[in-house]
């Protein structure tokens, strides 16, 4: 029998850490070794006895059974049922405890098992390092917090944290030494801080700490910041790209004002833009990993870049990767007068498709007609699926790009051609809910639900889309209208206008 015990401190409240770990089927969302996971027989993931059946990123399959789970003690234990390695008799437990003087969490992960003697050291090391310690790092990464347990010089760059209020009466007990933020004089920046998920009102301008850039980061002074519907989903908590307190925003353009020690090829004064996680763009200045930055040439203004890079990259992978639009295909684009809709209309037409656009008003219809849509449907006045069938002589659309969500999903299914493809890439009107996939067989329909990050989170994935978009822009295959601009402090107004469909085209915040 060997015992493995690893423990760490996560600099996040225990409720946040437990919310992630108690989901017995959720480990594929955070542990780098897990590719996919499902619960056998569709049992609830937190039911004692539930069996998770999962696949490793390296290909092996395992089954593990939940033996106990206590929300009171924040503890769960499980055993291995099947594994590609001889971890015989493996029983493990996860236990959290609060650290009361720093709002941090102690996390212990321990197990016992009987390895074959000749593989003992190898298997102990694998469990301790590749499973437990890698899991600690992944959760820390997911929560975007700094590592309290590591010596200061080895810490990753601190997450954005509200700067400490000044003028607070000193506490009678000396402040804790290792968990408190360092007391050196930190720079600050103005940013829109989301301290809890909610409506546009939670977007408040605050002064937040701005640490020096880490070795692989640059600090950017933003000139213009893109506003996208994904920011709304971050604000409401629909996507967990942002965990409060945090700064939303995934797109901006600006000028580099400082570079980390390990940066080469970028210098102070360079104009750059980005359109990718992590969130944090709604700020005057921020630090950003350098490898996903895009250099801006002089023919592309800050406002155009901030207004269009994320949408352009999304349009690129939607039209080329998620579905490769071919000449002659019928493409239906919902919310066609919106920021991304306008790009899709122009670009799909440029690719040789017949473009049908839906919009909510006559004003918006005129906009998309000018952009080159072959047919425009004002869906507030006309049933769009009937209209598509009429326009296509009953054939239907080959592909539908639908960011509207619940209001259009059923109609989109009805408007598709046989072997049509529904690309659901947003839910402006609400999530589409649960659908019976058997119904898709009546027309052999394909449904895609692409996630922006999965197409853009490495330089290798992102670069072709950026190149393709800027090329299309320079060739005037797509044109970018002047975006509506708001002061950074008025981010809440921008979100209200975006959500109430008052806007057409792109929105930017100006610091």
């Amino acid at each position: 029998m060997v015992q493995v015990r690893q423990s760490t401190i996560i600099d996040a409240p225990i409720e946040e850490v437990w919310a992630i770990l108690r989901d017995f089927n959720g480990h594929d969302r955070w542990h780098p070794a897990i590719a996919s996971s499902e619960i056998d027989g569709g049992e609830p993931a937190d039911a004692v006895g539930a069996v998770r059946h999962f696949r490793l990123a390296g290909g092996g399959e395992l089954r593990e059974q939940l033996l106990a789970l206590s929300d009171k003690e924040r503890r769960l234990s499980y055993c291995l049922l099947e594994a590609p390695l001889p971890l015989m008799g493996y029983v493990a437990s996860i236990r959290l405890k609060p650290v009361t003087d720093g709002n941090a969490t102690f996390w212990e992960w321990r197990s016992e098992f009987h390895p074959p003697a000749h593989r003992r050291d190898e298997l102990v090391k694998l469990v301790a390092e590749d499973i437990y310690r890698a899991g600690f790092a992944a959760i820390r990464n997911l929560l975007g917090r700094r590592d309290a347990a590591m010596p200061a010089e080895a810490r990753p760059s601190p997450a954005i944290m509200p700067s400490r209020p000044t003028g607070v009466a000193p506490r009678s007990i000396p402040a804790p030494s290792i968990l408190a933020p360092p007391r050196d004089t930190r720079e600050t920046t103005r940013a829109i801080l989301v301290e809890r998920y909610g409506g546009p009102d939670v977007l408040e301008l605050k002064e937040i700490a701005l640490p020096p850039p880490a070795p692989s980061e640059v600090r950017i002074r933003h000139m213009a910041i893109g506003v996208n519907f994904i920011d709304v989903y971050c604000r409401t908590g629909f996507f967990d790209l942002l965990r409060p307190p945090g700064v939303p925003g995934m797109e901006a353009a600006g000028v580099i004002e400082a570079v980390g020690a390990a940066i080469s090829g970028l210098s102070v004064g360079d104009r750059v833009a980005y359109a990718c996680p992590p969130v944090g763009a709604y700020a005057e200045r921020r630090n950003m990993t350098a490898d996903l930055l895009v250099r801006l040439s002089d023919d592309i203004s800050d406002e155009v870049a901030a207004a269009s890079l994320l949408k352009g990259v999304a349009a690129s992978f939607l039209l080329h990767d998620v579905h490769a639009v071919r000449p002659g295909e019928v493409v239906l684009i919902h919310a066609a007068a919106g920021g991304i809709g306008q790009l899709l209309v122009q670009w799909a037409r440029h690719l040789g498709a017949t473009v049908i656009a839906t919009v909510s008003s006559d004003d918006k219809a005129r906009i998309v007609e000018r952009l080159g849509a072959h047919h425009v449907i004002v869906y507030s006045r006309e049933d769009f699926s009937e209209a598509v069938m009429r326009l296509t002589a009953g054939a239907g659309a080959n592909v539908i790009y639908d960011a509207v969500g619940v209001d259009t999903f059923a109609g989109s299914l009805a408007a598709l051609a046989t072997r049509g493809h529904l690309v659901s890439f947003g839910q402006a009107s609400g999530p589409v809910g649960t659908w019976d996939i058997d119904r898709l067989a009546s027309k052999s329909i394909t449904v895609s639900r692409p996630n922006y990050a999965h197409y853009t989170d490495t330089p290798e994935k992102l670069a072709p889309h950026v190149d393709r978009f800027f090329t299309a822009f320079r060739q005037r295959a797509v044109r970018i209208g002047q975006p509506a601009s708001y002061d950074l402090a008025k981010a809440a107004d921008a979100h209200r206008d975006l959500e109430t469909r008052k806007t057409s085209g792109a929105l930017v915040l100006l610091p």
Partner: protein
Amino acid sequence: MTKVYVSSVIPAPAADVWKVVRDFNGLPDWAPFVAESRIEQNAHADRIGCIRSFTLKDGGRIRERLLALSDYDLSCSYAILESPMQVENYVATLSLTPITDGNLTLAEWQAEFDCTPEREAALTQQIGSGVFQAALTALKQRFGR
């Protein structure tokens, strides 16, 4: 029954911290509010059942009986026999857990006791912040990096 729980990360290996806190007669050495302490009847300080009698810097006197001491679990439990705090059935446990990531220690200090309802909030505050957390903070500074 009222419960109090505090915890802290001490920047030292658990074995080093345990050397300090396992001495049931050693509070004056590290707890900031204890003036002096002695073990009654010349008993050994790690003998289950021994009684420590100590004086606080503010003059209060407390007598506590050692209920359990485990060099395996790195934990120690004790009960109050006499104190100015007006608590009954007071049992506390101080325990250490290694944090393998960084070779640090999680120190936990918890207590359960009975008291009158109107004193509960004040006692929780006094014991939690004023005694346990303050002592853990002092321990942290003793090992401070």
